[in-house]
């Protein structure tokens, strides 16, 4: 405030105050304008989004490598601590899985025989692309991840992303060398599913919490905690039969799905091309929800 006494101060200080307020008001209006533009989902918004994502991809790709290294180190330390216990558990699991393997080999052989008898036409082989997760929205309102492959590697909107053990989500936005995957836990995710044992249909609706809800379940559906949930293939986005998770009964009587995939340690995803490009819509309410923002 040394310059307060300067003769110019009398003129410049009020002008500066006014311009500052005008800039602030203008930027607040601009933010609302952006919201409207984003809501309208114009091609311009989407192409500029993917363009910026593409520019940032090399940076994020490079920076996300050390974070995986950090993960490996912390994992290593935790593993060392639990080594003995883990070993015993793994031995037990191994024995169980060996039994299962023998069973499944028998079933596979039987299946092949029955298919032969029925002249069953096998499904076409699914092309798959492996992508590395380079950005991960840790915020409160979104469940998406960015991966380091895009149009160049043959990705397109609507492809299905799976992790090691189950469904991850679907490709919602594709740039030249990056893509955004909408996780099944996101608010905008609606996935038609089946209760594997009873074959009852439902919709798995994400609400940004770790466990998505099961909605539109038939009132007479037979379902209990621990049942396996798989995709049903209705709606034409997800093919049928991809494992999703298991049913968990909540305290308030509602049903949720605990996904097989651990989203806190999602490093690589496999992106599968089933050639399906439908929109997820919910015929029960007649209201189609947008999925790719």
């Amino acid at each position, binding site marked *: *405030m*040394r*310059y307060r006494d*300067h003769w110019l*101060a009398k003129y*410049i200080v009020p002008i*500066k105050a006014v311009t*500052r307020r005008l*800039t*602030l008001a203008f*930027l*607040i209006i*601009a*933010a609302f*304008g*952006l*919201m*409207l*533009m*984003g*809501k309208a989902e114009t091609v311009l918004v989407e192409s*500029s*989004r993917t363009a*910026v*994502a593409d520019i*940032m991809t090399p*940076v*994020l790709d490079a*920076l996300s490598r050390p*974070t*995986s290294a*950090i*993960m490996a180190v*912390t*994992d290593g330390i935790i593993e060392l601590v639990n080594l003995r216990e883990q070993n015993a558990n793994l031995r037990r699991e191994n024995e169980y899985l060996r039994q299962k393997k023998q069973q499944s080999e028998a079933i596979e052989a039987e299946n092949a025989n029955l298919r032969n008898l029925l002249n069953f036409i096998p499904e076409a082989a699914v092309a798959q692309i492996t992508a590395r997760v*380079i*950005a*991960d*929205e*840790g*915020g*409160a*309102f*979104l469940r*998406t*991840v*960015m991966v380091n492959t895009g149009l160049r590697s043959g990705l397109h909107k609507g492809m299905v992303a799976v992790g090691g053990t189950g469904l991850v989500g679907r490709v919602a*936005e594709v740039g030249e060398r990056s893509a*955004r995957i909408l996780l099944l836990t996101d*608010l905008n995710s609606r996935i038609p599913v089946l209760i594997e044992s009873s074959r009852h249909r439902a919709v798995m609706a994400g*609400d*940004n*919490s*770790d466990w998505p809800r099961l909605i539109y379940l038939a009132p007479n559906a037979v379902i209990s905690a621990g049942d396996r949930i798989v995709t049903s293939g209705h709606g034409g986005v997800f093919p049928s039969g991809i494992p999703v998770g298991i049913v968990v009964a909540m305290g308030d009587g509602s049903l949720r799905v605990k996904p097989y995939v651990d*989203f*806190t*340690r*999602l*490093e690589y995803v496999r992106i599968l091309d089933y050639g399906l490009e439908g929109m997820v819509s919910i015929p029960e309410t007649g209201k189609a929800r947008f999925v790719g*923002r």
Partner: protein
Amino acid sequence: MSEFILRWEIWRRMDVWGRSSIPTGLVALSILTSILPWHLPDVTLVGPSWVLITIYYWAAQRPDLLPVSVVFIFGVLLDILTGGPLGVNPLVFVILRGLLGSQRRFVIGQTFLVEWGIFAIVAIGAMLIEWLCISIIAKNFLVISPALIQCSVTIIIYPAIAWLFTLCLRILPPERSWLGTL
């Protein structure tokens, strides 16, 4: 001789410029921190809002080095990189920066507990604006619990980050006068 003075002047200006861009650089760093996949084992998916802490701190301490337009651009960048609804973060950040720009004297020079309390109130306010905007855009009131968790984590972690930033505050060039910022 004059060449030497010129060179010295260039170096001096580059040094001042470099140190002046520390707040902006830290905001950029906080954006990267919040979107990189950290894969911390068994940590909840919701991390603290690093960007909110950074913008709050520097808008309060050195608003001259963090113009409102820069804050707006960072907001847009964050929305794009996180894939969120466009415009929400710029709105929150511009309001935050505008508020701190005008009410700065209530925020700085307080005891740390008071400063922390003010930050907590601001963080809750920012979360509510964000929640409301996204709810309106989604045409449906969102579950607020993840936002509450994020807000609590942000408030809890604030002292540690603020302490780190205080170290940076010391190496910044002195605040410019009204004539200089014109």
